[in-house]
């Protein structure tokens, strides 16, 4: 079977298009690359969607945590502590069994036990909490001069936030937020290893890599392929976020720009 045939059969296997049965024996390198790459669709789906939706929630959380009002501050603080203080792995397990129990009572919750929605919600809350902490730190280090200037222009409330505080917050938080994005993508590999079932063997990249490693008892081929895919995604994120960082800093003289520094020492 030619490699082109394999790509046609298994290229979209992870979302249920193409050959139904996974290869059983005599795995070729092409099959490794195609299936693991096909699994990456799910990693990108979880990562991109959680990152995008989490971004807005995180902004709200950060503002709430910085607010003077107790009723806004306390819930935000607790939410952030809850999701940053516990392992993501345990959060996935707990959420899955919670949704399973809720499903028994109210049928409305049945889609939540599937990974595409249930795991997405957990990732959304998780990344929102981590990002909110980053944004909160940035909010607190906004230069006094910026807000003074806003006051001098007579800005207050929403326009002040929208035009002064928010862009500056993003600019200051962006390097740390880039790291958060990278780690969120790495964290998406946990989904199918916590309880969320891979229905009809539609799993993510690690699910297929693990499938090959289990079948061949040879970890030296599938995992390096997986690593290669993830390094590619990481580089893509770095490039993409670098462009945005440039745009956020475009009004500043070169020496005052926020540099991208990659401190990848986070894990969930």
């Amino acid at each position: 079977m030619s490699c082109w045939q394999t790509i046609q059969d298994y290229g979209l296997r992870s979302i249920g298009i193409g050959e139904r049965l996974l290869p059983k024996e005599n795995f070729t390198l092409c099959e490794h690359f195609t299936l693991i790459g096909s699994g990456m669709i799910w990693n990108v789906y979880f990562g991109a969607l959680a990152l995008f939706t989490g971004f807005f929630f995180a902004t709200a959380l950060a503002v709430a945590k910085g607010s003077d009002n107790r009723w806004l501050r306390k819930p935000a603080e607790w939410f952030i502590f809850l999701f940053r203080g516990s392992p993501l792995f345990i959060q996935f397990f707990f959420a899955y069994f919670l949704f399973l129990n809720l499903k028994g009572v109210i049928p409305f919750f049945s889609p939540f036990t599937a990974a595409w929605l249930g795991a997405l919600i957990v990732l959304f809350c998780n990344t929102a909490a981590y990002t909110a902490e980053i944004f909160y730190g940035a909010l607190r280090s906004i230069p006094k001069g910026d807000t003074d200037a806003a006051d001098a222009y007579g800005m207050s409330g929403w326009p002040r936030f929208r035009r002064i505080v928010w862009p500056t917050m993003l600019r200051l938080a962006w390097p740390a937020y880039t790291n958060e994005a990278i780690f969120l993508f790495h964290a998406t590999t946990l989904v199918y290893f916590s309880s969320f079932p891979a229905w009809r063997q539609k799993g993510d990249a690690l699910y297929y890599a693990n499938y090959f490693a289990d079948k061949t008892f040879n970890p030296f081929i599938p995992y390096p392929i997986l690593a290669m895919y993830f390094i590619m995604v990481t580089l893509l994120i770095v490039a993409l976020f670098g462009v945005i960082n440039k745009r956020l800093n475009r009004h500043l003289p070169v020496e005052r720009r926020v540099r991208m520094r990659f401190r990848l020492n986070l894990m969930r």
Partner: protein
Amino acid sequence: MFSYCSDPETLGSFGWFSCYLTTGVHMSFYLSFIKVLLLLAVTAPVALGVGFWGAMSARSRIIPLSWVGKTYIALVRGVPDIAFFLFFVIALDQAFEWTRHKILCPDWDQPIRQGADFLVCTQAKLPLGSAPQWVHESYGFSLAVITFAIVFGAFAANVLYGAMRAVPREQIETAEAYGMTHAQAFWRILVPQMWVYALPGLSNLWMVLIKATPLLFLLGIEDIVYWARELGGTKTPKFTSYPHGDWRMWYFLFLLVFYLAFTRVSEVVLERLMGRLTHGQATSGGEAQRKAAV
């Protein structure tokens, strides 16, 4: 455990729970918490040691050695950790068995990798097929420790590498002016001073390490996640005198609370430690303490 537990059906809810939570399997569940703490206690110093070697080789003047160090740091951090855990458990096991096979059975003529099988001679099996159960368990546990040490060693190496570079250059220059060799300046001047710079990163790493412990489950250890799944599942009266529905949610809620509490306690302790260490230091933290005292 208690004498009144012989017939659980007659008990009220409080008595029932006191019996239920002290059954033999629950004792294994509690024991697995000790296992997790033990893993943390063993891994943290080992990973720190590995990290120290990694940082040392990354800043080595021998170019190939510094490449090795830098590649190690970059590679481990660029790939999802869970993939490393899954990879190393098989890879380490095979590496050990392969080495033993080469030493113990030199006249073995068949290939080790036969299709989907990995075959070594009987004497090279690790642990030996005849070994008692506890050897198997501790072998699995030490594989887990090595895996954790490799992954966290890279993170620690990164922190220490940064800390070594944060020590002011003048300090080393002074040492050189006194005629110290490169090694002497490293051990006598750089290493004692770098810890203050390393501590924030290392305490962050400790938090991360705590949160990585549930991944033990993936390494095939019977840890807290394993037992929570086992014990929480639906039990029918046929097999146990304590039947119940699907309680896994409550078990995992308990684990969640356990981790939150553990994180909180660590935070408080590390904050105090940092306060102690910054006392009198020429850093912004030390300066803030001086101002607050006045």
